């Protein structure tokens, strides 16, 4: 624990340089407000609830979109790996949509579902689903024949066998796909909120930036960066627990 905290020590150095550069006005304070001002703005926004209420709505959108993408993506990936007709039907669609930059769908989802939560959730769901699908597909295809046979001979029916053998076999690759999806969800969340939204982190960044309250804007940017980092860390700990059997 102490070791890993020490690893982040250089960040303190960066913070000190930032503070110094801004205080000495080596760069304009509009481009780079002193770090201490940013921290003060952050505390203010926490106190008046602006950050928490916008944050809550952002986390709801990201969470709902991501959860949907994990459920649907896993089901599609395993279905494609296990039933030939599903694969024949979906493989070309996955191939075409995979490289599409999902942010291009922002206006589309707004036309469909408006400015509120729905369009953000749909966007995140669509954007995050394919990495999950591909992970589940590759993982499920690697499940060993003898394990499937073992489960069948012990009395598992086909559906049960998917749940008991194919899903756990797919787990390592599936969890990798979900990690990609997690990172994507933050990107899609903030970019969609920046463009069209009435609340959320992205909206706040855009709004504060347009108003020239740069210290507060930086405070929100940092909050999002930290949340993204923390989410990935927590997720990695979760993965380690899930894959305890592999070592």
């Amino acid at each position, binding site marked *: 624990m102490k070791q890993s905290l020490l690893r982040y020590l250089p960040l303190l150095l960066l913070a000190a340089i930032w503070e110094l550069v801004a205080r000495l006005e080596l760069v304009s304070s509009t481009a780079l407000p002193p770090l201490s001002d940013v921290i003060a703005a952050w505390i203010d926004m926490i106190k008046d609830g602006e950050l928490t209420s916008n944050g809550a709505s952002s986390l709801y959108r990201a969470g709902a979109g991501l959860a949907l993408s994990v459920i649907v993506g896993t089901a599609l990936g395993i279905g494609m790996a296990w039933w030939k007709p599903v694969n024949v039907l979906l493989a070309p669609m996955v191939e075409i949509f995979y490289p599409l930059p999902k942010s291009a769908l922002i206006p589309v989802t707004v036309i469909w579902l408006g400015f509120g939560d729905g369009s953000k959730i749909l966007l995140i769901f669509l954007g995050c689903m394919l990495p999950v699908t591909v992970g589940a597909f590759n993982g499920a295809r690697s499940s*060993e024949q*003898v*394990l499937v*046979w*073992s*489960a*069948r*001979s*012990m*009395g*598992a029916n086909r559906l*049960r066998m998917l749940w*008991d*053998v194919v899903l*756990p076999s797919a*787990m390592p690759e599936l969890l990798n796909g979900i990690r990609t999806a997690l990172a994507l969800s933050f990107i899609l969340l903030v970019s969609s909120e920046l463009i069209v939204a009435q609340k959320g982190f992205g909206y706040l960044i855009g709004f504060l930036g347009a108003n020239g309250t740069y210290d507060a804007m930086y405070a929100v940017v940092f909050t999002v960066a930290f949340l993204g980092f923390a989410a990935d860390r927590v997720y990695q700990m979760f993965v380690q627990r899930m894959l*305890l*059997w*592999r*070592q």
Partner: protein
Amino acid sequence: MASAAQIIIDRVNHLYRPPRGREVLALDQVSLEVANREFVALLGPSGCGKSTLLYLIGGFLPVETGAILIDGEKVAGPGPDRGIVFQHFALFPWKTVRGNILYGLERQGMPKEEREKRAMDFIELVGLHGFEDSYPSQLSGGMKQRTAIARTLAFGPDILLMDEPFGALDAQTRALMQSELLRIWQRTPKTVIFVTHDVQEAVYLADRVAVMSARPGRIKTIVDTKFDKNDPDILKAKAFVEKVDEIWHLVREEAIKAQGKRA
């Protein structure tokens, strides 16, 4: 006598269709009858179709020509009346020793308390006490195979299908596991079909050895190999050594033929 047989394999052919290339006749008119509680070894050079035959009995591959009957009924798919042990153990790597053994019991809907007790009994039986919470990746090859055997025995199949179960083990562990299997088999008698390419192993374990010919797989001869399994010096007994020698010559011919065909 035919009606007394538990397993009847009647003129079974099997075509192996590789994803690319020509199809190969893997089994050619194979017939074999196995009595209840009999231990039969399928012996032959690699590629003779002995594992394929085992998978057909297990119901993992479809029987296309001929028939396989178990207690008078046609095999139509896998089922818990037949337990299988694979060469590479086929344990669920995400389940502990206990979890692996419990799996078949859960699938049969055994009440929780009963299955926990039964799992512990079988862990005890194969000498894995103290390792019940280990994952397969933490076990040696011998321990993995003990777990696989316990898992299969625990759900109580009438028939045990073993596909070169000791093939991946080192010589010492292998010898140990062979006598262990006999000990367990004598305590919980079952019909066993045991695939191997090790002549001594086949003669030592089985009541009868079915020697298979190389591609296409046929049953060449069936040799009686009943010896006193409890005699600690059986492997050195003259009659045993001669039997091994006799069968070894039969297998050797086939192996040479198989080599010739490949060349």
